[in-house]
């Protein structure tokens, strides 16, 4: 597997003595969408800051696309785009000028066609001459993304990109992220909307208290830790529910509800199979509900 970012033994202890990162080892693969999840204060932003040059690590190494981020910072940083969590923008500058500024700052000459394409992709083209102060919060967020993309980075960090963004815009943004991935950009994002990570990411890393506690392929993670609950509402109360294919249900106090738990690593057809057999057993039921555990459930279990 081709690694684009290699983080080894990364440590950050702030002057206050707070250990924000405690020896992080993490490899990001070229071309993937990697979601970094963790509760507030887990070290997500510090980790991103360390790769992008905003935070000075107190230990460890980071190699970005073959370049050490401290020894060879020019080459490393030219490859990286960062969309910060805070909506930090220059208020009185136009959208076009701020994006052109970013491109220059990262060492590239003007390229009107490229900037036009970015602004069009982000639905900002008709606002190119507007001052940033006049834009809505969601548009400001897109301006930050445009700035981060202005120097054609190979690696894009999105720190909470959809915080405070409405549903429609969030959907547009994820479409854009997918397009970028198709173009070969590696994307590392943090998000509070876990269903987004579930929807978007190829791999998921969970960070808690400055340590990576899990890195897993998303589907493998869901399979390993996810489970499905099949809840059956009965017509007549029962005290002896049938064990089907090795699954013994929980019976509610009134005897009217059966809950079967199917682990994530079982056959995908297991729930359907269970219901068919239940019908054959002669039990009469009035409702069927299925709950697949979400990444959120898995996440909560992990960080507890």
């Amino acid at each position, binding site marked *: 597997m081709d690694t684009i970012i290699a983080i080894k033994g990364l440590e950050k202890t*702030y002057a206050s003595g707070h250990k924000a990162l405690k020896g992080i080892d993490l490899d990001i693969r070229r071309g993937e969408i990697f979601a970094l999840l963790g509760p507030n204060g887990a070290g997500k932003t510090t980790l991103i*800051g360390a790769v*992008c*040059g*905003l*935070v*000075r690590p107190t230990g460890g190494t980071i190699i970005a696309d073959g370049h050490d981020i401290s020894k060879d*910072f*020019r*080459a*490393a*940083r*030219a490859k*990286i785009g*960062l969309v*910060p969590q*805070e909506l*930090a*923008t*220059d*208020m*009185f*500058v136009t959208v076009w*000028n701020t994006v*052109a*500024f*970013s*491109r*220059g*700052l*990262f*060492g*590239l*000459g003007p390229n009107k066609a490229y900037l036009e394409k970015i602004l069009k992709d982000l639905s900002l083209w008709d606002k190119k001459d507007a001052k940033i102060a006049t834009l809505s919060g969601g548009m400001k967020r897109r301006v930050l993304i445009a*700035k981060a993309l202005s120097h054609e980075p190979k690696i894009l960090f999105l720190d909470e990109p959809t915080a405070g963004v409405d549903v429609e815009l969030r959907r547009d943004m994820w479409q854009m992220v997918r397009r970028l991935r198709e173009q070969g950009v590696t994307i590392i994002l943090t998000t509070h909307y876990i269903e987004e990570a579930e929807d978007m990411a190829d791999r998921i890393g969970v960070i808690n208290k400055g340590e990576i506690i899990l890195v897993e392929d998303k589907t493998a993670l869901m399979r390993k830790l996810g489970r499905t609950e099949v809840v059956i509402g009965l017509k007549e109360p029962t005290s002896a529910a049938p064990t089907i294919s090795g699954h013994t249900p929980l019976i509610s106090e009134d005897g009217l509800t059966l809950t079967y738990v199917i682990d994530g690593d079982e056959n995908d057809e297991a729930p359907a199979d269970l219901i068919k057999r239940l019908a054959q057993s002669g039990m009469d039921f009035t409702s069927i509900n299925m709950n697949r555990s979400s990444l959120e459930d898995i996440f909560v279990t992990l960080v507890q």
Partner: protein
Amino acid sequence: MNLHAIKAIYAFEMGRFLRTIFQSIASPVLSTSLYFIVFGSAIGSQMTEIGGVSYGAFIVPGLIMLTVLTESVSNSSFGIYLPRFTGTIYEVLSAPVEVGEVILGYVGAAATKSVIIGTIILGTARLFVPFEIVHPLATAGYLVLIAVTFSLFGFILGILADGFEKLQIVPMLIITPLTFLGGTFYSISMLPPAWQTVTLFNPIVYLVNGFRWTFYGKADVNIAVSLGMTVLFMVVCVGIISWVFRTGYRLRT
């Protein structure tokens, strides 16, 4: 060398200047005009010549210096403090730029503004009092040197400041008083001997006198000493800024 980055920062800062062109120019021009009306014309007409130069003409270099110093410090400190305050500094810190490039961009733009304003004031002064410049090239060179040096100084203030009021304190409480006491309105030979000695510890004396020498070919302090002090101050400022960026002091966590 990341020339595109220098250009981008410089253009960005000059853009800020152009957006506020009216107050950037009107305020220093107005206050200097007032000085010329009060000290140059009204009071100056009652004063005797100083070293063969009319009083109105005598104060011109000092007044230009007063504005150039305060403008350089405030423009430059504001230029770097503002992105720190709004958070946009993240972009400069994550960009493939070295300290020298950042300085060239920010300080270069601040110094350019000061030189423009200084030149406008020079023109304004000419409307109020007649004077001839003996060494015009030296005047231009000195103006640039002072603008760059004090823009560097302002850049340091902008990095150290942790509030808008702190940005105002140094120009108001240090630069302006030292300039007033630095021989802007008088020749230090007019002071009692004890105060003449005290005055020599005021660094602005060397700047004002060096600049005045380029105008009239004579000054209270030797031009070589003036130039030496200015360059020394500039080197110290560059040293401090390099240290700040190397250690990330107040910039990186």
